[in-house]
């Protein structure tokens, strides 16, 4: 393994988003806080999802995980499509880096960005409202695994898209609906049966439900089941991504 090569690519990917931290770290934290302020304020008195848990508190882990997932996706996908479109991806493709090293560096960088943004939302939200922490390990495990899954999805989207609007389409028509319909703002038990059943086919639901369990010790489905689904999703997406990278899909002619 070209360890230093892998480390360098990881460092480059971290440096890339760090250099535009205003847009990649601060902006998403602010967006999440705006959601929290508006939805929390409007619905606080009307909705109680888990017994004894205030709606605003219920909302925070959902918003955190949404930020984690969206930013992990955004990191790998935008880095890849930018280097593809500007052409500088060749500087990575001409090196001895293997497709596995490439994959690991991109995924890990995206995980870091996702987790940092999630932590930012958490810290900012703590100022507003106290939040229980049932198990930090569960929180971390779901954050890491969820962002890793979205990072692989980001690589797939970045490889597939030839133009920025195709990537935006992927983000708006796949990622956004799946995150919004996954129980960020509500418990799926409050949905009509049809939508409840449908939600069980959405892996994002398990990511958020398991993550929320880490805070409250309460969830819609068992955290073990959520963990298994998220792990399986990640494994499947990884296998697909690795195969695409090995073949050089749309990057090596």
């Amino acid at each position, binding site marked *: 393994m*070209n*360890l*230093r*090569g892998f*480390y*360098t*690519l990881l*460092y*480059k990917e971290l*440096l*890339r988003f760090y*250099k*535009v931290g205003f847009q990649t770290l601060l902006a998403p934290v602010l967006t999440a806080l705006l959601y929290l302020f508006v939805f929390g304020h409007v619905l606080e008195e009307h909705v109680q999802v888990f017994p004894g848990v205030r709606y605003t508190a219920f909302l925070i882990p959902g918003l955190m995980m949404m930020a984690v997932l969206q930013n992990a996706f955004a990191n790998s996908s935008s880095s890849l499509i930018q*280097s593809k479109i*500007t*052409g*500088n991806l*060749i*500087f*990575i*493709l*001409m*090196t*001895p*880096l*293997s497709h596995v090293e490439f994959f690991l560096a991109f995924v890990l960088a995206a995980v870091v960005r996702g987790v940092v943004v999630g932590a930012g939302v958490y810290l900012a939200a703590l100022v507003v409202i106290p939040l229980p922490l049932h198990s930090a390990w569960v929180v971390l495990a779901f954050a890491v695994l969820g962002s890793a899954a979205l990072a692989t999805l980001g690589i797939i989207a970045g490889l597939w898209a030839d133009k920025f609007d195709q990537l935006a389409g992927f983000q708006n028509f796949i990622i956004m609906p799946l995150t919004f319909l996954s129980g960020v703002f509500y418990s799926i038990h409050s949905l009509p049966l049809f939508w409840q059943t449908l939600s069980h086919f959405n892996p994002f639901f398990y990511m958020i439900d398991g993550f929320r369990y880490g805070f409250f010790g309460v969830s819609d489905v068992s955290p073990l089941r959520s963990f298994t689904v998220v792990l399986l999703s990640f494994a499947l997406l990884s296998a697909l991504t690795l195969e695409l990278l090995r073949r*050089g899909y749309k990057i*090596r*002619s």
Partner: protein
Amino acid sequence: MTAAVGRKAALALPPSVNEASFAVAVRGVHKRYRAVHALKGIDLDIRRGEFFGLLGPNGAGKSTLINILAGLARLDAGSVAVLGHDVTRDYRAARRVLGVVPQELVYDPFFSVREVLRLQAGYFGLGHENDAWIEELLQALMLTDKAETNMRSLSGGMKRRVLVAQALVHRPPVVVLDEPTAGVDVELRRSLWQFIQRLHREGHTIVLTTHYLEEAEALCERIAILDRGVVIALDTKQGLLARGMDSVMFTVYTESPILRLPVALENKVKRRQGNELVLQLHRRDDAIADVVDALRAHGAVITDLHTEKPDLEDVFLELTRKDRRP
């Protein structure tokens, strides 16, 4: 080598030759892009330490071949090895010994020149022990005072120099330059060539593609001409130039424009403008003295005349044109 035997003989490869003894060994390479058969069985050996030219018209397959070398494209059949390392099976080793200066002016807008070079070295597994070499490159390519400047703020010429530095950052023994002087001003072109010649003197193998044939003529020891996916010539510069020796450009200046040409010369006219007449003559069949006599007999008063040997451009055009004949 004569033109008649040159074509086939130069392409024939001794089967016993070990790929590892060459800087680049290309064997029977085919590449197809859907309907386009970009490379149709390329065989090519580039010797260690050689300054090698890869020429051909647009769409000949030069960039495809370079992309295969660099790992940016995959071959459909055949094999390519750099210093004996197969570019597919042993790609890590092959890429470690190869540096490619791409044709397009591509750069990463997020980083400074020094960051770009350090990152590039890192991908090859090199750390701070390589910093001294990076400094040397910056100095040699006149980039030292721009080291901390973001790539976005550099002029085109500077970006081009960074591309050269990037290709050399891991000290590759084999360097490929794909049209390195396209759109580069005269001064920078000259300094780039001085630098490349220095690398060559220090033992690097240099593979160059260029549209400026005079550059290839001045620098390259051996030249391959590709046309529509086939190597149509592979020879030393002298051998290649000798192929054009069948014809001679004969220029005559007369006191007044020639109104009527001898019939025998009419089909040899290359250009006729005012008092200047350029004829393309056959080296053996046409005697210059006879031509002069014939012109005089038709009333021409010759004030000056000269002949020119065909240059690489003439040979190149001749060969690629010949190749297009049915």
